[in-house]
């Protein structure tokens, strides 16, 4: 006689094993890419190139942490590129005309602008019940329109910005670029919140089954608004980081950036059906995409392949998710049955 409890436990370990496998898989892929590029591209394995990658990936990671929260609730935020563009321009423009504004205050304003834009997204989706993909497709266009209204087609050039702001991108405490420290901080806080904060655990519940979450009294509307607000706020911070990194800001800043972010999130193992995914996976996913991108540039592949590669990666990742989901469900079903049948047979005896 088998103990009835045991199969159920092993089914749970199976599920967690599958998700561990995902992070391990991305880690191994990352390692392989690094080795491959180190061998093929002579200037890949240099400290300065890795610092470059770290600065590039930092912006993606910050915005991807917010996007992760939205995707966990079974939604999507396509407007992050436009929000980042808006806050990048407002930050750069304000600093170029008011050199006295402290940089921290400016960063907070950028976050505030993003937060407001994210709140609008959240309200449209959660209260207006507009499918997230349509609502944020519309706000992608609307926020980009706001960038045009704000800039009137103007540029902000690096030499207009205060010296302290220009120096920020080059600062490397402990050898790691300043932007990478910001990303590390955001990823750690985001990861901790998603792991331990009860309200953030609700994101997983909502994504697994919105209906079940509602029935166990999860405040679904409020949580979805929160997720979009965080995504907007971090996109705002990402826009500020864009301004720091490139110092050259115009109406097209961060256009199409949402695809870099979504690729990182989806490759990083956040399920597009919602309900599963970790910040560690997303960080590894962002690193993988940035590394491949960097290697492509060093190996002088055409830039045009990058878009094709990103799109294909999204399709492959979501297809794997769909297949995996079917597998896991089948496995769970098979493993539960022997646990319940013997109990019914034993009952009369």
């Amino acid at each position: 006689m088998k103990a009835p409890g045991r199969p159920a436990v092993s089914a749970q370990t199976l599920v967690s094993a599958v998700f561990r496998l995902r992070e391990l898989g991305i880690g191994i892929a990352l390692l392989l890419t690094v080795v491959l590029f180190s061998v093929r591209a002579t200037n890949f394995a240099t400290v300065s190139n890795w610092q470059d990658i770290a600065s590039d990936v930092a912006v993606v990671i910050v915005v991807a942490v917010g996007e992760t929260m939205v995707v966990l609730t079974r939604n999507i935020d396509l407007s992050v590129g436009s929000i980042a563009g808006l806050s990048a321009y407002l930050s750069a423009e304000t600093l170029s005309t008011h050199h006295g504004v402290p940089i921290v205050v400016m960063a907070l304003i950028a976050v505030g602008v993003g937060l407001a834009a994210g709140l609008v997204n959240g309200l449209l989706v959660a209260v207006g019940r507009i499918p997230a993909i349509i609502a944020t497709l519309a706000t992608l266009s609307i926020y980009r329109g706001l960038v045009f209204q704000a800039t009137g087609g103007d540029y902000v050039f690096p030499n207009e910005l205060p010296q302290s702001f220009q120096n920020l991108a080059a600062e490397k405490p402990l050898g790691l670029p300043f932007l990478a420290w910001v990303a590390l901080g955001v990823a750690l806080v985001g990861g901790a919140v998603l792991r331990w904060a009860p309200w953030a655990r609700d994101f997983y519940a909502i994504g697994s089954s919105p209906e079940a979450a509602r029935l166990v009294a999860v405040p679904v509307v409020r949580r979805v608004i929160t997720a979009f607000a965080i995504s907007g706020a971090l996109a705002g911070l990402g826009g500020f980081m864009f301004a720091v990194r490139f110092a050259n800001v115009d109406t097209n800043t961060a256009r199409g950036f949402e695809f870099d972010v979504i690729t990182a999130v989806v490759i990083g193992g956040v399920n597009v059906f919602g309900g599963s995914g970790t910040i560690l996976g997303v960080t590894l996913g962002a690193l993988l995409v940035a590394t491949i991108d960097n290697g492509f540039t060093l190996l002088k592949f055409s830039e045009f392949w990058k878009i094709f590669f990103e799109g294909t990666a999204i399709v492959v990742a979501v297809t794997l998710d769909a297949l995996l989901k079917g597998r896991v469900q089948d496995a769970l079903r098979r493993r539960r049955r022997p646990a319940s049948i013997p109990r019914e047979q034993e009952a009369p005896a």
Partner: protein
Amino acid sequence: MSPVVGLARRAIVRWEALLVVMILAAGVWSWTLSSFFLRRANLLDLATPYIFIGLVAFGLTFVVVAGEIDISVMSIMAVAAVSIAEIWSAGVDVWLAALAGLGVAVVLGLANGLLVGLLDVPSLAVTLGTLAAYRGLAYVILGGSSISGLPTGFTDVGGGYISNELPDALLVLLAFALVLGVLLHATRFGRYLYAIGSTREVARFSGIPVARVRVTIFAISGLMAGFAAIVYLGFFGSVQADAASGSELIDVVTAVVLGGVDIFGGSGSILGVLLALILIAVLRNGMQLANLGGATQDMVIGGLLVAAILAGNVLRGAQSRGLPWTRARYARKEVTQAETPGVHSSGT
């Protein structure tokens, strides 16, 4: 049953009537901006820049009615347009090239459809990926250059005029509206889409070949993007890999949703989409007369998209529960009907 159908029908009739009223209002506004607006030549030519948008929107209508979404349509159109131009510039007859372009478009649509219909990957995730992948494909095919100088016999489809006044493209649009309207509203295949869009499980249990139909709608969407590519090439006379990568997708989705197609599937008509397209054309024309820039226009269209879905949601809520202030009256009615069976069928 029948009061529900009656109510739904009245709502649809009202929606399309509302669109006509909005078109007239936008027309009057445009007329106050410039008396040139009401010239016959301008009225006929109004929609010409948006014909390719309309053709893509017709294809997307089939997808959305069945409860799915395809946001890769503009990228498919770009790949088709780029392929046609590239094959033609290699010395092949332009009409053969167009045929090949249609084939490419169908294959790309089919790829979406197979992932959605057979592997059950959510369509928004698939087409979000292929939106980028297909755009990348267009870049890979054509690079950063552009192709122009296609033969006039071919470009007339999108940019030619009959007796200098009636655009050929308008006739193309109306012909497709007619054919696709019949396919959607008067064939078994069309009815399948509404059934699948309403409740997929029930449709499957009713013996509808759900998987096959879901694959087919994405192929149709791809094919229409292919036809749109031909019109696009004719209207603009040249093509680059970044063709229609801006606000065009929003215009397409807005035309479909504003046309009364339920974004959650199960209802909508080709006539509504056609009217919504005309409304967008009149509005953009008016905004140009008012000297509003492209970005401002895009904001207005984006706002219109959001407003259309919000209005649809409110309408649907009103249909199922009644408006807040009429809820009590509806509840009373239901009680009366339940007490006197048979009344409700003759009531509407």
